[in-house]
């Protein structure tokens, strides 16, 4: 490992020295193949890594990584095996990984399959790949494992992936589109966002439901939009991004919400596990349910593309209908 890195760094040093020497000679006929470095150094969760300047065979070893690469216009040569879970992704995502080689299911990394994929870069998420797994991967090819400040911190993870794969332009383009979308919604729907909102899902027990907080992906998105949280929601910053509460508190917590967001499948159809809560008489008696202000959204946000899709859905499913009422 150390030898490889040392040789890698030596290679960079020699290439830079050669480039300087060439420019010193005053050559005006710079060949792109020789003037740029063949490798770049990027920061990762487990230290600096030498990666190819333009990687061509990227293997994604974490669960959300393929969608983040998709959002950077980088096509991986191998991903995790999603098996029957693949149905829970959007048609575009399913199409993206169709026919792509697989390297084992979640939690069961198949290192032989990774070798077979002949990667020139391996990328993943530090919440799934620990240092021991990283070292095994780094023996196969340059490996960049990125880390956000919390699980599902897709913006930070995508920034790291963009640096590793050299997809800075695609990232800048998406960041710009995202910022413009958020700003546009905030401006157009200020009145609707000033209503009180609660985003919920299933709970940890049959007679429980959960509230999504800004410490999770969807909670953070609505928070960034400026949606006002319902005052009945207990103060908390739960690490997994949600807190589960008994049905007994459903009335007290959610009766203060003008707008309730509930989960849907990626294709927009109702998510079956939530049906038990949605049809419960305590839920149907809530003011938001009686005024038709319970809205279904897919919570599958992992990257800029799915975040933009989520914001589009928020606009068409919730904000436009609410604005039309006033």
């Amino acid at each position: 490992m150390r030898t490889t890195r040392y040789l890698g760094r030596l290679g960079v040093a020699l290439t830079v020295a050669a480039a300087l020497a060439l420019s010193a000679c005053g050559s005006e006929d710079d060949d792109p193949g020789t003037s740029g470095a063949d490798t770049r150094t990027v920061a990762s969760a487990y230290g600096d890594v030498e990666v190819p300047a333009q990687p061509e065979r990227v293997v994604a070893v974490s669960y959300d990584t393929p969608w983040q690469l998709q959002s950077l216009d980088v096509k991986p040569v191998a991903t995790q095996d999603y098996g029957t879970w693949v149905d829970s992704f959007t048609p575009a995502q399913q199409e993206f990984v169709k026919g792509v080689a697989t390297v084992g299911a979640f939690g069961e990394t198949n290192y032989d399959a990774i070798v077979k994929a002949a990667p020139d870069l391996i990328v993943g998420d530090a919440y799934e790949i620990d240092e021991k797994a990283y070292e095994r991967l780094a023996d196969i090819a340059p490996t960049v494992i990125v880390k956000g400040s919390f699980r599902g911190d897709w913006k930070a993870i995508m920034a790291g992936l963009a640096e590793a794969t050299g997809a800075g332009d695609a990232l800048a383009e998406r960041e710009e589109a995202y910022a413009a979308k958020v700003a546009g919604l905030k401006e157009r729907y200020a009145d609707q966002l000033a209503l009180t909102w609660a985003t919920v899902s299933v709970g940890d027990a049959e007679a429980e439901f959960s509230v999504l907080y800004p410490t999770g992906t969807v909670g953070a998105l609505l928070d960034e939009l400026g949606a006002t949280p319902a005052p009945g929601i207990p103060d908390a910053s739960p690490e997994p991004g949600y807190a589960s509460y008994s049905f007994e508190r459903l009335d007290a917590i959610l009766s203060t919400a003008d707008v309730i967001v509930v989960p849907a499948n990626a294709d927009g159809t109702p998510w079956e596990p939530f049906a038990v809560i949605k049809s419960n008489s305590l839920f149907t008696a809530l003011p938001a349910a009686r005024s038709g202000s319970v809205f279904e959204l897919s919570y599958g946000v992992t990257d800029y593309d799915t975040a933009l899709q989520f914001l589009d859905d928020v606009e068409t499913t919730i904000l436009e209908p609410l604005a039309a009422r006033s």
Partner: protein
Amino acid sequence: MSPGRTIGALLAAVVVATVASLCLGGRVFSPVEVGQALWSGDGSSHDQVIRDLRVPRTIVGLLVGAALGLSGALMQGLTRNPLADPGILGVNAGAALGVALAITQWGIVRPGGQVWFALAGAALTTLVVAVIGRPRRSGGDVVTLTLSGVAVGAVLTGITSGLVLLHPRAFDSMRSWNAGSLAVVGYDRVLAVAPFVVAGIVLALVLGRSINALALGDDTAQALGVRLVRTRVLALVAVTLLCGAATAAAGPIVFVGLMVPHIVAALIGPDHRRVMVCSLLAGPILLLGCDLLGRYVAQPRELPVGVVAAAVGAVLLAVVIRRRS
């Protein structure tokens, strides 16, 4: 304390635990309010919480506590093994695998369908553990049976986890059930499991005298007129009914079946028939007590009873061991 007084005290404690379970939690109601909601409710959210959440939750607690307490006492008497417990001997894990198979392979989500799979899983596991852990010499081998139960239970739990992870639908359906919780909505689960728990209780109590004789050793039991094979088979049927139904109702809950008979025996002595009757009453007290604790320790959230029972059970087990040594 005389047996009559002990049973009377336990009955009173069951009543207190039941009333407390109906009145306390995320919302606090007086016993009068509970009575009004049940007899003359107007369908307000207040009444719905009592009728659709508190009452079924309390009934599940009573049924599961009774089933686990009694089956633990029955297994300990039957195997002459103080570590016999539906959790430790893998029976609950077998029932859980049955439910996982019902959901993943046949898409059965209704409790009325799941209970049959839980019973089949419990029955098969009981048989497998009994065969692997059968004593090689007369007098029984406590360690072999216990270890075979732990081993079989670990394998079955692993298979259940694998099934759940590979099937998105099962993952969603079993996520909450796996922790062991009494928090149910409505009466589907209560109605699905109650007949099996009642049948198991009746069968176990009928066998009480024979189990008592078995505790004295096979030869003595035979001399007292006990038909060994019939008694053992019927006792295993009772254990299967009780554990399978309890697991289908509330998910896997450990320690209750182990602890309750030990605590009861420490109070009233080793007569197995009395231990069984008292465990039947003490099980619901311990389980409802743990459930109430779970409603308060992490407010405004709740801890599932399975987690609280494991923590409380571990402490009680340590106390019992210290007292014995």
